[in-house]
């Protein structure tokens, strides 16, 4: 994140000063060593220059990584590797004490590289097996190195030389090779496991980095013991190639750390924010992600009245379980939980660091939380209205079915009985006429009941769906009508009933108020939407506010997330257009 001048904290300024001093001291020390070695003239100056350059690369990469990601241990490890390189360089000095130090640290950079491989990306070693392998790695290059100078005639004259014992030297070399091989096999197994668990975008960074690191560690010993004799390599070429391979290690690690650990870069995220394309991600979480170097970081908000965490859009969020690759820390304000930061635990090893960041942004989080809470309320209100509509439809259907099965059947039977009573009487008997009247009365009661049931939930809608029900509706309109239906397919029940009642109410209004001579109804199903249109040639001037029927329909359409458009200029007809989303 670009930061305006003057906003850096005192702590950051102090760290940057310390790193500058460290860089100065390290460069000064290694520079001094270089001058001394060149003056000794036991090797051509360029040999020392190449070697020093390699250790400077380690040091500079380390200081840079440390500067940019103070919370990440990779920077410190790279500096350590640079110092180990410089110490190894001392082995060719003619001063015995200096050369002795060099002999002791000759292979130390290899152990640091193994350490780096295990510590990436958080900069901290995770898991007991990793810890053991890294410790054994350091033992291999520091302790098991002992026979290689103590019993080596080439080291005679150095204070660390003990005796010329070829047998012990050979045994020592064998032990170091075996342990070294074991360390590399263990490392390969662990890295392979991490690759398997990694996300695809993480693998794009991890595979080249792990691959290169492992090959580099293997190349140093194998190039001397296997490749050089086999390919008859020039010793100078061999040494230079080894140095180049080792020098590239810190560049690879520093780049990987500086690009936010993994290649989903902060720059892209910032660009997306700047373009307003970051979508459901708040500015605050983008800022946190950038500062903490984890672009997968998410900010979630605690909503008290629902007792759960929600995202910026107000949707419910499940926090990661303990032990998952992702982890979270709560954000409190005045002792009340207000949110949480969900982050990649493999990228950020220290939860305290995330907590600190959370405390810093707590006030901002609280403000965004109110927005998120409002969205949650809105979301839950909409769900509850949807449930109300569905329940009402279910009840309507149940009432219609109950009337159909119950009282309507009873009225048919009563009419039958009344008519049979009439048939049984003499045609001259005045009671006969009364019985027929009774049957007619029952029939008209049944007709009223049919109309009621039809208004509650039309049979055609239950039996055949929206198209058939609309057709029946239009059939009964005492105006010239046209009906166009296309592409309805199968629609969810709430959409069918809402569409039907909208058309029914609109057509009823046309008949009652519009003074129209014709009405056109159109139902058009498209991908994901259903369009309804009821247009008449009447006097216009209709308004949603004028009719309670229309008002109720606007609410129903709104619940389903649809749109409602009433166009009714005076004397120019009325057109109602409704669009309903059909996918739930």
């Amino acid at each position, binding site marked *: 994140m670009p930061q305006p001048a003057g906003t850096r904290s005192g702590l950051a300024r102090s760290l940057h000063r310390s790193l500058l001093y460290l860089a100065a001291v390290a460069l000064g020390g290694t520079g001094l060593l270089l001058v001394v070695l060149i003056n000794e003239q036991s090797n051509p100056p360029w040999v020392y220059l190449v070697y020093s350059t390699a250790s400077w690369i380690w040091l500079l990469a380390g200081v840079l990584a440390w500067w940019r990601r103070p919370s990440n241990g990779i920077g410190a490890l790279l500096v350590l590797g640079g110092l180990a390189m410089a110490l190894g360089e001392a082995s060719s000095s003619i001063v015995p004490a200096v050369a002795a130090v060099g002999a002791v640290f000759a292979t130390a950079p290899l152990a640091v590289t193994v350490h780096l491989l295990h510590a990436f990306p958080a900069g901290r070693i995770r898991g007991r097996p990793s810890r053991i392998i890294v410790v054994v790695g350091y033992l291999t290059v520091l302790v098991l190195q002992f026979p290689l100078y103590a019993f080596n005639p080439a080291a005679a004259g150095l204070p660390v030389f003990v005796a010329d014992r070829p047998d012990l030297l050979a045994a020592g070399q064998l032990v170091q090779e075996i342990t070294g091989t074991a360390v590399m096999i263990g490392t390969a197994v662990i890295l392979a496991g991490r690759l398997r668990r990694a996300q695809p975008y993480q693998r794009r960074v991890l595979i080249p980095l792990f691959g290169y690191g492992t090959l580099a560690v293997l190349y140093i010993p194998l190039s001397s013991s296997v490749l050089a004799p086999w390919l008859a390599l020039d010793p100078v070429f061999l040494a230079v190639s080894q140095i180049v391979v080792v020098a590239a290690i810190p560049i690879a690690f520093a780049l990987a750390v500086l690009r936010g650990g993994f290649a989903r870069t902060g720059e892209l995220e910032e660009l997306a924010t700047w373009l307003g394309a970051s979508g459901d991600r708040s500015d605050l979480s983008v800022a946190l992600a950038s500062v903490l170097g984890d672009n997968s970081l998410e900010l979630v908000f605690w909503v008290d009245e629902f007792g759960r965490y929600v995202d910026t859009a107000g949707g419910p969020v499940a926090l990661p379980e303990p032990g998952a690759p992702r982890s979270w820390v709560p954000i409190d304000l005045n002792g009340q939980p207000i949110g949480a930061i969900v982050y990649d635990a493999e990228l950020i090893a220290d939860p305290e660091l995330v907590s600190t960041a959370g405390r810093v942004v707590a006030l901002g989080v609280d403000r965004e939380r109110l927005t998120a809470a409002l969205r949650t309320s809105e979301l839950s209100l909409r769900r509850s209205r949807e449930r109300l509509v569905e329940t009402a439809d279910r009840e309507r259907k149940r009432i219609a*079915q109950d009337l*159909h*099965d119950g009282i*309507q*059947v*009873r*009225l*048919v*039977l*009563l*009419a*039958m009985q*009344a*008519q*049979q009573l009439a*048939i049984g009487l003499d045609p001259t008997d005045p009671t006969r006429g009364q019985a027929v009247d009774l*049957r007619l009365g*029952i*029939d008209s009661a*049944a*007709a009223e009941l*049919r109309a009621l*049931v*039809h208004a509650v939930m*039309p*049979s*055609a809608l*239950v*039996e*055949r769906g929206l198209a*058939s029900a609309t*057709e*029946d509706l*239009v*059939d*009964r309109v*005492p*105006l*010239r*009508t*046209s*009906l166009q*239906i296309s592409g309805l397919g199968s629609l969810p029940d709430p959409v069918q009933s809402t569409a039907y009642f909208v058309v029914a109410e609109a057509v009823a209004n046309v008949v009652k108020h519009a003074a129209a001579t014709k009405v056109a109804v159109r139902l058009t199903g498209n991908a994901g939407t259903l369009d309804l249109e009821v247009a008449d040639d009447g006097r216009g001037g209709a308004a949603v506010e004028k009719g309670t029927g229309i008002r109720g329909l606007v609410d129903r359409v709104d619940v389903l997330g649809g749109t409602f458009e009433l166009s009714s200029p005076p004397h120019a007809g009325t057109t109602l257009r409704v669009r309903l989303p059909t996918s739930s």
Partner: protein
Amino acid sequence: MRVVIGEDEVLLRRGLTLVLEGAGIEVVGAAADAVGLLALTERHEPDLVITDVRMPPTHTDEGMVAALTIVRGHPQMSVVVLSQHVQRRYAIELLAEKRQGIGYLLKQRIGDVETFCDDLRRIAGGGAVIDPEVVSIMLARARLDDSVIGRLTPRQHEVLKLVAEGRSNGYIANELVITDKAVVQHTSRIYDALGLPSDDDAHRRVQAVLKYLAGTSTTA
């Protein structure tokens, strides 16, 4: 006449059976769902099948689907579909299959048992009886959309409606309180206006009128 009934309401099933048997119509089987109705129809090969539109298990249009299946499988069988609520589409679907021995009536019409039994006999005899409510809908639509029917006199309308319901000349004369001769005059003028062939066979005349109405009112 041998009849099979499909009706899920047990009271109505029994009541209908009693009424039909009282009118001398033999009820050879009564089923409570569409599957049972098809099975009984296959077993008894009745002259007439009466079915409700809505039946278990889904209570949608299973009875209607069963009726169409029977009409296609047994063209000689007459079929009457009863419904709590009548709609034009069902009448047109039935008439599209066949125009003889077909009936579509509001369930409440059973109450007028004599008329209902007469209708059943006419249907079994090759007639077509469509509920007055459906005929009204068809006529109203034809009057709005079709200029020929719109030009008919109100009296001719009344006669046309009763013809379309499948009524006999005598019934029409009685209903409208006019002479049989007046009915014949009206009908021949109506047929001329609609361009229908005059036919002495009453059933075929009804069918021609229904075909005309079904045709003009199929605008959807």
